[in-house]
Structures are given as C-alpha cells and as structure tokens.
C-alpha cells in the first residue's frame, strides 16, 4: 500500500475501512437508501415468493421502463413515472390475472401480455422523445451512488407506509396466500387482498428499481426471501431473516464497490446469488442427511384409532 494515494484502498482493518466509507455523504445516503429498499423489498418479496407471483413481480419491474421514458417525455422526475406505471401495472395484473377462477397458465399469459404492452409503450416513448436518453444506464442498472437527501426521505416515508399496511394485512394475507379456498370461506377478502398486495408490491418495485435499476430489482426482491424460506419454515423468523439478508447484501455490496472499480449492482446481485446457492446447498446436504436417518414408512398407522376398518386390504 503506497502512502498518500487518493484512491480508496481496502485494508484488513475493518473499522478503518468502515469509517473511510462513511466519510462521504453520498455513501451514507447510498447505505440509508439501500437499507430502506432492502427491508421493503425483502418483506414484500417474501410474500411474493410464497404466493408464486415472481413473474408478476418481474413484470412490475419492467413497468419502470415506460415509467422512466414517459416521465422524460413529458419532462417530470423519473420517480413519478415509476410509481404511476408500477401502480397501473399492479392494477392491470390484479384485474387480468386475479381471481381464483383463473388457472395458473391463464394467469401467467395475462401477466405476459401486460409486460409486452409495457415494453412496447416504453419503446414508443423513446422514439417520441427523439433524443438520446442519457439515463438509460441508470434506468437499467440503478444509481446507488447518486441518491439525494430528499430521495432518502421519500423512500423512508414510502417504506413506513407499506410496512404499516403489510402489518395490518399480514395474517389474512398469509392465509389467503397458502389456502385461498378456506380463507374465502372464512370471510377473508381474497381477491381484494390480492389487488392490494400487488399494489404494495408495485410500490416496492418502483422504490427498489430507483436504487438498483430495473434489471437488478430481483436481487433484493427474490433472493433474500428465497434464501430465508429455504433455511426456515417458521413465518416470523423467516421474515426477520429475509430483512437481515437483504440489508447485509446491500451493505457488503456497497462496501466492496466503494473500494473497487466494478459497479455496486454487480456485487449486490452476486452476493445475493451466492447466498441463495449456499442456502440451497445446505438444504440439499440436510435432506440427504435426514433421509439416511429416517427409514421411510410406507403407511402411517393412525394412532389410537383402534383396529383398521374391515374389508379394506391393500
């Protein structure tokens, strides 16, 4: 290590490295914004993974393309475009693909149509704009390092609102996600919850894609939840672990990116991928281990039910 060089260098002293990172206001803002979107995307992503709505989430992420280009066309801040299009996309998906009467293939076909329309609109806006959209790279890969104080505040307010809504809806939403038929019979508004959830997911996607870009939203939306769900089946710890993993991914990713020539999004996505693969490997190892231990019983005898019914012999 040469003394007196302005280039940031990674040392083995973690405390020194951390204080070096926190010296700069833009890094503090990046960490704050990253933490907020990691928590918000993690919690909504947890339900999204449980509800198998990953494709819907992906389509909502694509909404940022017409959102940003449309905003550029009429000359307003890109964030407005993100939120308007993600919200409209959530409603369209909820209306087209929602309802328990639709089969799985019909749902994904409906979502695919919405996605195609969104991308086509984005393309239209680009050609109407005529000029070169300078922010195209930011749109796709995010602007971790250019987050303003106002943006941090807006993200915090948005995240707080979403979390309060999610806390109020949490248990019936879980019920409707795992067991829609029974939840409906118990008076849970399954269809309404589905649309509200997609709306919240749209907000989370819009907020996250401002930081990570359209293409890397899933690093924070899917990977932490999928990793946590692979590791534990208890809903409470699983949600907590999701947030912890998401926040850790952002901090470590930003920290490494500060000292390196490669973009933050690359590190965030790579760490998310590595953690997910580790979790899958752990599940696989545990599965092999427990199936060796457990002699697989063919029929489970009904305990304390007396003799089996007569006349039925397998």
């Amino acid at each position, binding site marked *: 290590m040469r003394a007196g060089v302005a280039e940031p260098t990674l040392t083995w002293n973690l405390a020194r490295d951390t204080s070096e990172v926190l010296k700069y206001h833009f890094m503090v803002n990046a960490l704050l914004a990253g933490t907020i979107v990691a928590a918000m995307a993690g919690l909504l992503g947890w339900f999204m993974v449980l509800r198998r709505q990953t494709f819907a989430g992906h389509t909502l992420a694509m909404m940022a393309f017409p959102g940003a280009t449309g905003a550029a066309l009429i000359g307003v801040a890109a964030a407005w475009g993100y939120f308007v299009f993600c919200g409209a996309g959530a409603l369209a998906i909820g209306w087209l693909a929602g309802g328990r009467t639709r089969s799985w293939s019909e749902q994904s076909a409906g979502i695919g149509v919405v996605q195609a329309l969104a991308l086509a609109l984005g393309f239209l806006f680009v050609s109407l704009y005529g000029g070169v959209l300078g922010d195209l790279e930011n749109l796709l890969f995010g602007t971790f390092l250019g987050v303003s104080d106002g943006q941090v505040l807006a993200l915090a307010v948005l995240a707080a609102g979403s979390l309060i809504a999610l806390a109020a809806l949490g*248990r019936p939403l879980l019920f409707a996600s795992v*067991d829609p038929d029974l939840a*409906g019979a*118990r008076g849970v508004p399954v269809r309404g919850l589905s649309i509200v959830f997609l709306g919240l997911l749209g907000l989370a996607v819009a907020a996250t894609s401002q930081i990570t870009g359209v293409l890397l939203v899933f690093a924070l939306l899917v990977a932490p939840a999928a990793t946590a769900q692979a590791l534990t089946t208890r809903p409470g710890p699983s949600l907590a672990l999701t947030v912890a993993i998401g926040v850790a991914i952002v901090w470590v990713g930003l920290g490494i990116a500060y000292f390196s020539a490669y973009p933050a999004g690359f590190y965030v996505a790579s760490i998310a991928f590595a953690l997910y693969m580790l979790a899958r490997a752990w599940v696989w190892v545990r599965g092999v281990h427990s199936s060796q231990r457990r002699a697989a019983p063919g029929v*489970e005898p009904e305990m304390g*039910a007396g003799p089996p019914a*007569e*006349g*039925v012999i*397998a």
Partner: protein
Amino acid sequence: MSAVSAVSGAGTTAGAAIELRDARVEVGGRTVWSDVSMSMAQGEFVALLGANGSGKSTLLKAALGMLGLSAGSISVLGGPAGEANAQIGYLPQRRAFDAGTRLRGVDIVRLGYDGARWGVPLPAPRWSAAGRRRGADAGRVAEAIERVGASAYADRPIGECSGGEQQRLLIAQALVQRPRLLLLDEPLDSLDLPNQATVAALVARVRQEAGVAVLLVAHDVNPLLPYLDRVVYLAGGHAVEGTVAEVIDSETLSGLYGVPVEVLKARDGRLVVVGQPEPPAHHHDRHEHSHEHAH
C-alpha cells in the same frame, strides 16, 4: 326417501345441523340440482355421494352461504346459511400442498384458528396478557393436532408430508376452532386404500370424541361403510337420502339416474355401482378445473 328424516311440520327440525327443503341451486344460469330436501341431526355422520359434477361441493358451499339458493330454503345450525360459519370446520376440495410449500403443518393448522384476523402476531413476553393469550392459542392448536395424531410431523414443512399426513393436518385445521359441524369435501380423495381406511376411522373417532356432526363428500362409500349413519346421494339433478341399504340400492339409484343401474355387493361387504351414465372419474383432470365446474 326423505321419510327417514324427522321433519316436524312447516318449521325447521329442532337442533338440525343442516336442513334443506326443496332447494335449488343455479351456477352460471345452469341448474345444478333442484327439489333437494335433506335433514341432518346434531352429531350425525352423513356421507354425501354422487358422480363428478353432480353438485356435491356446491351443496357444501350452499351450506356455508357462499352460494345462494334460487328456490327453497336452507338452515344451518338453526340459522340462515353463512351465519354460523365460525362454528363450522370446513375442508375444501383441493390438491395436495406443493412439495415446495415452505410452511410447517402447525402453521397451517394455526391459520385455521386465527388466519382471518387482521394484523400480525407480535412477540410478547410470556407473563403479559398478550403472551398468556398466545400460549392458550398455541395450546389449542396443539390439542387439535394431538386429536388427529399428527404431533410427530406437525413441525415438518407441510409440502414434505405424505398425502395421508397432510389430510390429517387439514382435519386438525378444520377442528381447531372447536366446530359443531364439519364439512369435509373429498378428504379421502387422492389417498391410497390403507390411508383412506385410517382417515375414515379418524373422522369417525373425532366425531365421537368431539361430538360434532360430519357431512363428508366422497365418491366411494366403501371406506366409510362401518361408520356412517346415513347417506345423501346426488345424481341427475336430484337427491335421495336414507340409510346406506336404502339408498345404495339398484332400484333407488336407477330411479335417481333415470337409467338402469345395478348395485353389486361383494362378499366382504363392499358395494359397487355399475352402469352410471357418467364415465368413472379420472382422478387427475377433475381438480385442474375444479373452480370452473360446480360439483
């Protein structure tokens, strides 16, 4: 055949679990069944039989108030359908949980108890009022799981449980709110024969221990034969009710289907119905579209 049920004059039978009088249900403009009258007393174990599409699940949904009648009347636990749902344990017809469902059996049972309540359960210390209530709720869930003999695998992810284990946990889920009436939609479906027998025995035992009336939809009566009080058979848009011997009979079923149908009795007591107009069930394609079609 409704002579078996004790219908008292014009009013509803006192203490009836479910009572239908000249009921008709239409789904999407099509009459599923009409002129259906049945009465089921408290604590009775009744099987609801019939071919696919005969409207068995529709009858359960009508009893839950999820579908309105277009004619006739229905009363459930002494009131209009839908009002006493908190006292009804319902097990919807379904496929098994996907192998990737990352929730434990105990969580699924738990949702049957408080899943419809808004909010989320927050951690609370054991000595606080909220903590004590949480403890009592957990005890209730454990009790329902104990009752169906599922304690050994209730902490495993439900997707990793076998079909018979899942069915037992789902019965625990229906029992957890201590219902007076159980509506079970094809709980024996997709189980192998030994598991059909043990789950049927379990339902009979639970019904006795918990003193709950059971209306169980099945399309094979044989696993249930040792335990049933009566059966209701839906076919051709109408229903007959009575004892197994009265209803599952060549003459009665021929009248119901409108074509000659023969009931054969095997030496071990199993009943086989031959010659129904509809082809026998294809187990798998039925469920794919279960939401579009009324059963």
